[in-house]
């Protein structure tokens, strides 16, 4: 009887002791990216912002005034969403005054008011970063941005359907992450350029990139991006992504025909070679300058030369990076001519 009571008491103590043990911390499962789980791009719905880690709209193009003065321009708007923090925005605006051989650029940032709207996300595309705006308008988009000496207010009306890159529109650039990516490769530009206080009507052609996804932009690697408008109506883009050692981790391209038909270019179908270099007097960074891009299957061999060497943007205050993005002119072995834009990131002194 006593023994049974002791056993019972011991069991009670052990049970109580078991109950008192705090639950341990458990290792969280590791999530793996699965591209097949993502829905396809749907436009124009996907022109609007998303809730992914990183998203940007890149507009670059060439303008001409009524007097025939050429200008290049770049307008980029970045959205970052991290956890429960309100979305953060940055915008870069640059104008290359090709005739005067001058380069103007600026940057702005803004953190969204987390309490501005009931849904937190505006319907459609209507973004503003300290007064610089990117909006959708019937049939296209509008941008408005300005610096001390130059400002731009134009509408961009795509003249070709969107080109969905990498066939599915989804890029897996692990370990950096993944993204959706499409481009309106050719858009007619019409608007006003305020040039040293003087409003000058402008027309031209622009390239609109839109990329979003759960990827991060890191300073340890980088990429080279090329866009070309050929005078024969074809458009062409190529991207080369490097890791922190400088090794190429991704190379691809897209060729868009005059009617908008696209052909995805794999890494082995594409050759990119720098033909020169330029050292920034501002930052000491050495960039490639001048390129040859070949697509042998298409019999295409293009040379890209900057209109201006110094088209470097030091945007460490807004996006933490220094990069080169500039207007280039294009010529081909087959007599092709055209205009383009090149972006170079991740280069260091």
């Amino acid at each position, binding site marked *: 009887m006593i023994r049974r009571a002791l056993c019972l008491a011991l069991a009670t103590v052990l049970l109580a002791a078991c109950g008192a043990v*705090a*639950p*341990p*911390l*458990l*290792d*969280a499962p*590791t*999530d793996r990216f699965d591209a097949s789980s993502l829905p396809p791009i749907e436009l124009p719905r996907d022109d609007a912002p998303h809730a*992914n*880690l990183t998203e940007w709209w890149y507009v670059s193009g060439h303008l001409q005034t009524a007097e025939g003065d050429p200008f290049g321009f770049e307008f980029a708007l970045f959205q*970052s*969403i*991290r*956890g429960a*923090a*309100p979305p*953060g925005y940055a915008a870069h605006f640059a104008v290359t005054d090709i005739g005067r051989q001058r380069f103007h650029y600026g940057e702005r940032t803004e953190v969204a*008011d*987390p*309490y501005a709207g009931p849904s937190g996300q505006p319907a459609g595309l209507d973004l503003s970063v300290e007064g610089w705006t990117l909006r959708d308008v019937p049939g296209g988009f509008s941008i408005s941005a300005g610096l001390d000496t130059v400002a731009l207010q134009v509408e961009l009306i795509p003249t070709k359907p969107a080109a969905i890159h990498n066939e599915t529109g989804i890029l897996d650039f*692990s*370990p*950096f*992450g993944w993204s959706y990516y499409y481009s309106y490769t050719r858009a007619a530009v019409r608007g006003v350029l305020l040039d040293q206080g003087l409003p000058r009507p402008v027309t031209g052609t622009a390239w609109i990139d839109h990329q979003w996804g*759960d*990827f*991060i*932009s*890191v*300073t*340890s*690697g980088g990429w080279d991006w090329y866009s070309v408008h050929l005078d024969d109506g074809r458009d062409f883009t190529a991207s080369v992504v490097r890791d*922190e050692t400088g090794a190429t981790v991704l190379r691809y391209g897209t060729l868009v025909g005059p009617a908008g038909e696209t052909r995805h270019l794999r890494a082995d179908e594409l050759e990119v070679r720098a033909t020169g270099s330029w050292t920034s007097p501002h930052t000491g960074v050495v960039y490639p300058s001048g390129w040859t891009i070949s697509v042998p299957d298409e019999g295409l061999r293009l040379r890209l030369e900057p209109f201006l060497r110094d088209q470097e943007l030091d945007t*460490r205050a*807004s*996006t*933490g*990076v220094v990069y080169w993005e500039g207007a280039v002119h294009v010529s081909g072995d087959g007599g092709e001519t055209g205009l383009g834009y090149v972006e170079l990131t991740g280069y260091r002194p």
Partner: protein
Amino acid sequence: MRWRWPIIAAWLLAASLSLLALPQVGSILRAGGFSAEGIEAEEAFERYEQDFGAVGSPIQIAFHHDEWRVTDEAFAAEAARVLAPLAALPDVMRVSTYQDNPTQIAPGGHTAYATLFFDLHPDVAHRVVPELRGRLAPSELDVHIAGSPVYYSDIQTLSESDLQRAETVGLPFALIVLVLVFGSVVAAGIPVLAGGASVVVGLALLWLFGQQVGFSIFALNVVTLVGLGLGADYSLILVSRFREELAAGRTTEDAVPRTVGTAGKAVVFSGAAVLTGLASLMVFEFMMLRSIGAGGALVVLIAVAAATTFVPALLAVLGPRVNRWRVWRPRVGPQNGWARLARAVMRRPLPIFLSVSLFLVVLGLPFLHVRLNAPDARVLTPDSPSRVAYEFLRDEFGEGHQTPLFLVSRYPGGALAPDAVAAQHALTRALEADPRVARVGGITALDPRITLEQYQLLYSYAPGIGDPWARALAETFTRENAAFLLVEPSVPSTSPEAEGLVEAIRAYRDANGLDLLVGGGAAGLKDFVDRLYTDFPKAVLLILVITYVVLAVLFRSVVLPLKAVLLNVLSLLASFGALVLVFQDGWLSNVLRFEPLGYIDSLLPVVLFAMLFGLSMDYEVFLLSRVKEAHDEGRSNTESVAIGMERSGRVVTSAALVVIAVCLAFVTADIVLIKALGLGAAIAVFVDAAIVRALLVPATMHLLGRWNWWAPSLRWPRLRRAT
């Protein structure tokens, strides 16, 4: 007798000078005092300061508006206007606004706070609060001031008002009891005078020593409670004996030395027992307990000194006039009722011993489910500004926002190296997945969608982290080889779940070989309680052994002190059980006006044991002294007990009533710890005087028979015979 006038003059001078120091006592008292070496939470804090720089003492200024949002210009302008004069205070070393740190904005968007970091030690930072409040401009915003210094400032304010209230209630009540006991205003006035002098001189000495060593703000109440209770108690014993001697026909010249030689001796031994208990608090490393122990021991010495010098001098001057201003005429001397009770008990000693012991054990049973933890803001009254502010911020920001855990780690290869990022990422993910965690802050807590590889890439080129969020996190949460995580629990810091979370993090640390220390919030509370109860058995052993030795010397017996110590433990156990029922389970909480915490303040059993062991031992000491006197006169064991009960019955009852009156006055306190100390002491004294003294002592004395007086033939210290 010869020195009566100089002694009275000396005491009056000391008390008068002490009165001058009283207004300054508050200025030397320190908050906190809960730190000790070797406590992990403390080491975590020190490591944080080594690696990240001094933290200072933070005070939060919270702003709220029902209509305006924190992003509205009107809100920002008004908050800046209120903040400006506060930030200009001389000791402010840094200000963190909600614009600098968006985590200081509440989810609803109508509340935000700024944090002022004061370059002051946490123990003294509360002294800045009155000036801070004075500089608070009227505002269209609701403004609250929160943080530990504000909490301790309110504790000090309430503590002082508690004290005033206890004195206002306790002294007249004690005087009434004394007048009823003695029937004479003069006789009743002597214990009040001696008790008052003990407190006043005790507090002045606290101020004097406080210039050199730290005294906790809680020492104020303990010194007053012990000083008032014992001072009055001891004097009552002496006055009572003196009146007995006069009634027996002795002259003042004869009665005074006899009083000092008998009752005075009992007072000295009783004082030694109380002093032992309080001095045992010096075993602890915590300043808070050491200072209560030192302050308490100091005031015991003063109370004994007052009873053995000041009171005899007064009696020598007064002589028979001690009975002047009669209100009524009580019987002086032995009372047969107590002797009859003792004889009745001794006729059935075993059943009475067993049933009363069982009753006390049953009273103590609730203590088996005691849950101990450190106090939070709920120990203050619901309308205390710091409690209002704490609860407001808790409601707006969530449970753990104000009391986060911080996990300080070191990585020899650099805090942003891939393996360090991997370690932090794994721990962060594990914490984020835990239901006991509301939010984690750290370099890998940017967004759950960011993978480990992405984090490693983000931080792989530290001089130029491109992502501004990641850059901000790296600047906040890392230095060269050090990193920390901020963990906001979703459960109250005082809950068992929060304690379990701390244990789980430490187990994770050990299993993964991390060089990581856990501090803050629940970790600090848990480590404090753990250390407290590691040291508590040492203090208990010290009290039991020394008390035993003191009583063995007094009674020249081996068995009698053992019995006294054991019976005293029983009465304390009953008191502890009652405290659990009242302060943990909430019985009578409406009557006593407090909010039950669901646990017992971990300090309470420790301070109560130290304070009460000697205090409740008093009555046994007084009773057994009279029993021994009778036994030394050659009476039988049974007769000695009956005579001892008869001779001491009235005075012990009176003394207990006075102490209970003083203790119950502290039950009116606003601070729950003080309220509980008062109630616990009152219950223990009542149990000891009413049950142990009246029933258990006669029963056990009879059962033990001649063993009561057994002692090995040692060379006992020579004591003057009591008679």
